């Protein structure tokens, strides 16, 4: 569904993406993990067309994404830090997004479960980080897209809301959607993920299915499996991340 061919991106000296190749398909839930600054968000933004790679190509359903923007109607994106027009209110924001999209059927489950309908007059600039995150999540799921790209979805959410969101992601997974998710909280990914892709310094260190990973490491838990991979397969410099993974 999404095919990435030899993507490179440099920000001045930093090689943010270094020859990334990947293939994501329907029904997969891919966890993108790696230390801060490893290129996860840059990869996600490249898929969305927000970042233009220096070289390489990205295909969505076998069509080059640089040719058309229509493919984006199939993607629901939840950014790491949601930034919205300051002088808009929550209600106005949702009305506007619904207005500019042709779809007339909406999945408003999260909008109501996060109780955003009770605060439509709250201005976007007055929102706390967590409420902002709820708005981002509700927007990402609003058009019932085939692909969901979630950049640290649970960061900043209270435990209750976090569970609500996880339930929703699970429900969408059951429908056979492609879900790309980054998170540093590996326990959040535990029940969701089917594939793991580990990035570091803009390179894919490994990309494996959960079954492969479990078989190879002999560990059941994702966190422990990643830790095992790092201890046995990777160089010393990753040891700092290993501590966090535990």
């Amino acid at each position, binding site marked *: 569904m999404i095919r990435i061919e030899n993507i490179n991106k440099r920000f001045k000296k930093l090689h943010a993406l270094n020859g990334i190749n990947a293939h994501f398909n329907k029904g997969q839930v891919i966890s993108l993990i790696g230390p801060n600054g490893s290129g996860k968000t840059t990869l996600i933004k490249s898929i969305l067309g*927000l*970042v*233009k790679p220096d070289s390489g190509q990205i295909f969505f359903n076998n069509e080059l994404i640089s040719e058309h*923007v229509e*493919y*984006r*109607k199939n993607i629901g994106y939840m950014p790491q830090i949601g*930034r919205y*027009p300051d002088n808009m209110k929550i209600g106005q924001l949702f009305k506007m997004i619904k207005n500019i999209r042709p779809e007339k059927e909406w999945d408003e489950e999260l909008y109501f479960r996060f109780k955003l309908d009770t605060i439509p007059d709250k201005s976007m600039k007055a929102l706390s980080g967590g409420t902002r995150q709820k708005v981002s999540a509700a927007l990402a799921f609003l058009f019932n897209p085939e692909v969901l790209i979630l950049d640290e979805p649970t960061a900043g959410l209270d435990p209750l809301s976090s569970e609500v969101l996880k339930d929703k992601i699970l429900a969408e997974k059951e429908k056979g959607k492609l879900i790309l998710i980054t998170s540093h909280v590996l326990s959040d990914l535990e029940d969701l993920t089917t594939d793991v892709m580990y990035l570091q310094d803009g390179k894919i260190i490994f990309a494996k299915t959960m079954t492969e990973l479990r078989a190879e490491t002999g560990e059941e838990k994702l966190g422990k499996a990643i830790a095992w991979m790092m201890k046995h397969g990777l160089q010393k410099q990753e040891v700092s991340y290993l501590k966090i993974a535990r």
Partner: protein
Amino acid sequence: MFKISKYVLYDILRNKVVIAYTAFLFIVSMSLFQMEENTSKAVLSLLNIVLIVVPLVSLVFSTIHWYNSYEFIELMLTQPISRKKVISSEYTGISSSLVMAFLIGVGVPVLIYNFDSTGMGLLLIGSMLTLVFTSIAFLASVRSKDKARAIGAALLLWFYFALIYDGLVLTVLFAFSDYPMEKVTLLLSSLNPIDLGRIYLMLQMDVSALMGYTGATYKDFFGSSVGLFYTLGIMVIWIVVPLLIAVRSFNKKDL
């Protein structure tokens, strides 16, 4: 496209700067027409104010607005909307609000006091300059890395077009005063939309009689319909070219 422009326009109207700009233009125009006995003299004074204020406000306001709506632009780009559509909607929204402000602030007094070809010429030149400098502001904003640099660039461009350029032209004219310079001056004025607007309008007025032989040759050119089309054509180039370059570099930009 107009759906997005509508939201841009709505956002602009809410922050009231454009309304203050309209009021300012209106008060200045009204008081000039009130003070001067001779309305064509008032139009001349008004022209000088318009040539300074309109480019400055268009440049600075467009730049600031572009950066203030960056979140909005980012949000639009996560939707199935092309970058070209987003930037042209922004341009339509900002430029139409500024042109409306100008047409109300200056247009209404001109219609009341001096409804003739000179008055219409002033409104035309003012609107064109608004479009030109909004377009230049877009180029400066897209090409700059942050808000401070973009506003700095916008201000420098204003200094260049409103003040420095005239000095350069005068230097050239003095240095080559022994040669016939009519054609060269025409070319030089086309390289600055403010100058072009000024010359076009001055030659619609009676004051051009005081400009001697050069004034007379220009009056033949700018007084005819060819002059009008020439002025409009150059202005359109000044609108389209910066905007096209801005769209192209926006297409390549990382967000």
